């Protein structure tokens, strides 16, 4: 018989005090401030905004500090805060073709209008630890050059003109917000993309990699990858005037995949799409690959029974807050559940013993 008990308040309070002390670390070392995190750990900040599904650098930096750098814990804090915010409305759909690009590359065409611009990238670095950073203050200044301030068109729009690639045409349907409505499978592509955009980078990377290794016949090229600021347009309800209410950094990836064609459609290229807050190109590329592999039905491709093709599997498991919530709850007291299991096992063993004595 298990009798419910109370207790643990003191232990919990003291545990949290120790957590607080450890978060501060050695007091002889200067304390991190939020601006240092948002200025110098920008890619962590971006990840927490993307998976926390809320674009606010200071809050993201605060969450990282509070969570001692545990990014999933930080994402949890962002999500929790997000739910407390009144929703003022929805923006107009963004125009990524008007992005103020820091980076814009294509792996499919060398010479493109607007050119290949590498931007601040880790690509082509030697991945050797830089011991100069152990010392203080040394850094290189960015170089500058004269430029034309022209809009940079999407690379895939050139293939569009020849009809060589499947087009993305609006169906006119409004997108359901998966944070406000329960989801039912099968999902629309809009709902899938919303889930993927806030999904876990590691999970999406693993799935995308699985498609490259052959778990879904899906050889992808990066048609275009761009990172930069996009103006968010929003109509002020009191005035009916649309204003640029915010400037937000995005990374967008358009993948190009082969398609053999079907009875209805001649052979052409197809697309996968990735769009995420911040400079998170590994995630944007992963998102595009996984988006494409889930489109098999649309193109009449074969279902190979692999994870990356299974929308229900991907979408139900890509959210790291849902996942960690369920996973981590099993470390909390389950004394009653376990007591029941224990009783059951004892009973079965007794019956087994009785049966053994009889024979």
């Amino acid at each position, binding site marked *: 018989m298990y009798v419910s008990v109370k207790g643990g308040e003191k232990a919990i309070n003291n545990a949290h005090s120790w957590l607080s002390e450890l978060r501060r670390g050695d007091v002889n070392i200067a304390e991190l401030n939020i601006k240092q995190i948002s200025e110098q750990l920008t890619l962590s900040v971006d990840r927490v905004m993307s998976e926390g599904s809320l674009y606010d650098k200071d809050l993201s930096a605060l969450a990282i500090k509070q969570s001692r750098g545990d990014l999933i814990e930080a994402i949890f804090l962002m999500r929790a805060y997000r739910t407390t915010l009144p*929703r003022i409305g929805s923006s107009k759909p963004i125009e990524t073709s008007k992005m103020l690009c820091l980076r814009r590359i294509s792996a499919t065409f060398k010479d493109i209008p607007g050119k290949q611009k590498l931007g601040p990238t880790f690509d082509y670095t030697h991945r050797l630890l830089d011991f100069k950073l152990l010392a203080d203050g040394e850094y290189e200044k960015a170089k500058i050059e004269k430029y034309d301030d022209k809009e940079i068109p999407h690379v895939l729009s050139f293939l569009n003109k020849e009809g060589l690639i499947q087009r993305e045409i609006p169906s006119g349907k409004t997108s359901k917000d998966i944070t406000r409505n329960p989801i039912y499978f099968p999902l629309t592509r809009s709902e899938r993309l919303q889930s993927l955009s806030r999904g876990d980078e590691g999970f999406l990377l693993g799935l995308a990699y699985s498609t490259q290794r052959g778990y879904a016949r899906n050889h992808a090229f990066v048609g275009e990858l761009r990172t930069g600021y996009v103006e968010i347009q929003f109509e002020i309800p009191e005035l009916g005037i649309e204003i640029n209410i915010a400037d937000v950094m995005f990374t967008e990836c358009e993948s190009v995949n082969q398609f053999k064609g079907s009875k209805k459609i001649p052979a052409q290229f197809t697309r996968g799409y990735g769009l995420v807050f911040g400079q998170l190109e590994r995630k944007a590329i992963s998102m595009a690959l996984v988006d494409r592999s889930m489109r098999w039905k649309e193109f009449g491709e074969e279902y190979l029974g692999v994870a990356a093709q299974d929308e229900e599997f991907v979408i139900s498991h890509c959210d790291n807050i849902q996942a960690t919530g369920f996973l981590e709850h099993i470390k909390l007291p389950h004394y009653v559940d376990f007591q029941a299991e224990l009783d059951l096992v004892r009973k079965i063993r007794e019956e087994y013993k009785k049966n053994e004595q009889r024979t």
Partner: protein
Amino acid sequence: MQNESRKQWLSSLATADENYLISLWDNLNMKIEYNWLREPEIGSVMVQGKVGATGDNFNVGEVTITRCSLNLDKKIQGHGYVQGRNKYKSKIAALCDALMQTEKKEIIKRNIIDKLVKYKNNKRNEILSKTEATKVDFFTLVRGEDK
């Protein structure tokens, strides 16, 4: 036309660097009488993307927004919709929006709006010129056997 220019100044105020806007406003040292229509509140706007950059809309995630509304007198209202969670920034934006509709328009335009535009343009130019410096110039090498 009024709407077009109001759209411009509201956009400049909304996306202004908050510390810069606050310093510009505080330097003016204006004492303005106003009544709240809506005190500053922090909320969010859902950002919509397009599938494949041109297709259906989809929700990408939210961005924090602070808004407030006030009136100077019964006729003139100001609205402060700004990016971020700074209530003072939102109030300054609403006051500027209201003052831009009065005879103080020139002072606000010259000392705040024009400077915000310039600040943002400088930032834009800085990014464009740094990006340009990372432009790839391809060249081909003539191989021996092709000669």
